[in-house]
């Protein structure tokens, strides 16, 4: 409960993996991130496909800012480009999850916190339309146009005046 009272931010970036990650490495990354993020109350989603990485994370600025510093210096990827960092009123993701194109799809579907790209739900309606658009564009950039064109257009989420204007 206390966490909801504190100021929260979300932060999104895109980057390129230095070399392609194997399914094994992806699974390890998934496990490691899930453990660390659960510990620090970080939620969000990571997209990975063919060396393209994008992540949106939510949490307290005291946690996210140093976390992003570490992420930006991680030697496993380069060309880290921060897209957005702004204050949010509440989280849009209940946990931290990851979506990627596995080389061997079998087995991954059962993995907790993992999504196949074509099964990613549309951005939650708690995001402003501007932020939802950002997530959609990021997904398009990571997974390619078929991921977007194949998805049936979600019904307008009926933005309230304050949710759509708050993003500014």
């Amino acid at each position: 409960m206390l966490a909801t009272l504190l100021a929260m931010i979300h932060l999104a970036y895109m980057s390129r993996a230095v070399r392609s990650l194997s399914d094994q490495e992806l699974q390890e990354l998934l496990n490691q991130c899930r453990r660390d993020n659960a510990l620090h109350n970080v939620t969000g989603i990571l997209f990975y496909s063919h060396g393209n990485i994008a992540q949106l994370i939510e949490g307290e600025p005291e946690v996210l800012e140093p976390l992003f510093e570490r992420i930006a210096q991680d030697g496993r990827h380069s060309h880290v480009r921060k897209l957005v960092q702004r204050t949010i009123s509440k989280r849009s993701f209940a946990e931290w999850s990851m979506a990627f194109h596995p080389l061997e799809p079998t087995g991954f579907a059962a993995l907790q916190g993992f999504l196949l790209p074509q099964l990613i739900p549309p951005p939650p309606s708690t995001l402003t339309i501007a932020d939802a658009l950002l997530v959609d564009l990021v997904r398009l950039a990571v997974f390619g146009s078929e991921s977007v064109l194949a998805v049936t257009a979600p019904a307008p989420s009926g933005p309230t005046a304050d949710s759509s204007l708050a993003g500014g």
Partner: protein
Amino acid sequence: MPEQHLEDILRHIPAGVATLQGTELQFSFVNEAMRLVLGQDAREGQTLASCRSQLPADLREVIQQVYQTGQPFVTKAYGLFVATADRPAQLRYFDLALEPVREAEEVVSGLLLFAVDVTAQEQARQQAYQLALDTRRLDARLRVLTETVPQITFTIDAQGRYEYVSPQWYYFTGQPPIAAVDAVWPLLIHPDDRLRVLYQAENARRTGTGWSYEYRLRRHDGQYRWVLSRALPELHGPGEPVFWHGALTEIHDQRELAEALRRGKAELRFLADSIPELIWTATTEGFIDYYNRYTTDYSGLTLDELGPTGWVSLLHPEEQAEAARYWVQSIASGQPFEGEYRMRRHDGFYRWHIIRARQLVDERGLRWFGTCTDVQDQHLLHQALQTQYDELARAHHDLDTFVYTASHDLRQPALNLRGLFEELRRTATFADPDEGAILAMVNDALTQLDTTLHDLAATVRSQRAHQEPVEILDLALVLEEVLLGLLPQAQLRQAQFEVAIENAPGLLYSRANLRSVVHNLVSNALKFAHPDRQPHIKLHSYLTADGQPVLEISDNGLGMDLTNPQAPVFQLFVRQHPHIEGTGVGLYLVQRIITSQGGHIEVASTPNEGSTFTIYWTRATSSKAQH
């Protein structure tokens, strides 16, 4: 004892000493150092010839000759391969001296051999020689290089005097080879740059650092050209520069180009910032990376608040989701983006804009360029035109209906007139023969009137054929259209509308007829509003118990006296409120339209309280119907 002592000394001095006796050249003394030169088998008692010596043949020959001629021989740095017990043969150098020993100052009886190892000196000398050769070669190479590179190269000493200037300087400046470089060079620097350059050079010399600066130098043709001067100090000991070596590169064209680019870029930026239009660019992925200044001026948001996708939050909340989807589709497919959206100005007012974006592919990759053009005025104009068009179309329709119904309604009296005339002609007699001609003229006129009325009705009917009901109309839409058309009048009187159509939202009717009826009744309600109160007009659509669709339009206006026999409500050209402008055809038309489709209209009204018109659109199917 002294002799023994002398021998000890000779045996141990670091120079080789040996004596040879007799014509057979027998060794009488050989010290250890000499054995290194002559070989280990050169021992006392041995002859030179018999010792299996490492001496080369030419040296043996020389020894023989010295002995025979009695002439001493000295050679410097004589190279010999010397082997010892623990080391393989290696080349060493010796200074050799062969001195004949004469018996009683007369006959040569022996030889004195003397050898000093000068290997280290010789090697040093050879190295020095090699070094000199190398230096000369490098020097030559350096000279070729410095004199063929396009740069002017120079060396300045600690006092700032030019020690060396490559020939390019003379070619560039056109100065004669005898020119005093120290004096002339500063004069060739552009006056605007001179002080700065002299100060910077002086400063670098004082602090013992290198420099890199640009200035304009006068060329042989009098033109000033931009050059880049770079130099590094040559330090002799820490912090003790003796020379500065540097090069001067002409960078005029690059600088001009860079300047032009800077200027072009600045001009483009200025242009983009000055246009009163929202302009932006986006990356391949669809993230906006540039907004012109007008965008921040218009929106009142900072660049940070706008962010890569923040533009969408400027749109009207109803349009954001659709625009966001459209943008993602455009990015995915590469298709241009174009749409009309309301965009929020800094004061919260929404203005209509056409947002257009197209992708540009050039050597820098793929980018999107977008503009948002304010079309608020065009939009309002369009709306006004649409309203006027609707009004005209309705007026035209009303006119048609009027002509049709009038011609239809006038035919009956015309037929009556014809019957009466026939009756008159049959029963009455006329004395005046001229009256026969008049009767014929009346007959002709009656026939002509009838034909005209008939033709008129036929013409209008053919035009109205397409106005028969063909579809079930969405009442909500049609009513909204009609009310929009009456917006100016409604706003003038601050009228309130209440529309309740949930019970019968659809109606099978001709669109034009429906609009005519509603338009006439609502505009009447507005026109005959009570001057003391705000008009309140209710439109209520419902079905009767036997399924007959009904529209009820009630107002709180002036009302009518329905009992007045002088002013029947639905009569042509009869006006209930002569003091208010009008033609008196409105209600007449409404009734004609409704009855022509098999329906009927009822009215209930109380003067000064209001009227309620109840329209039964279709023929009644049960006995409840009153007409």
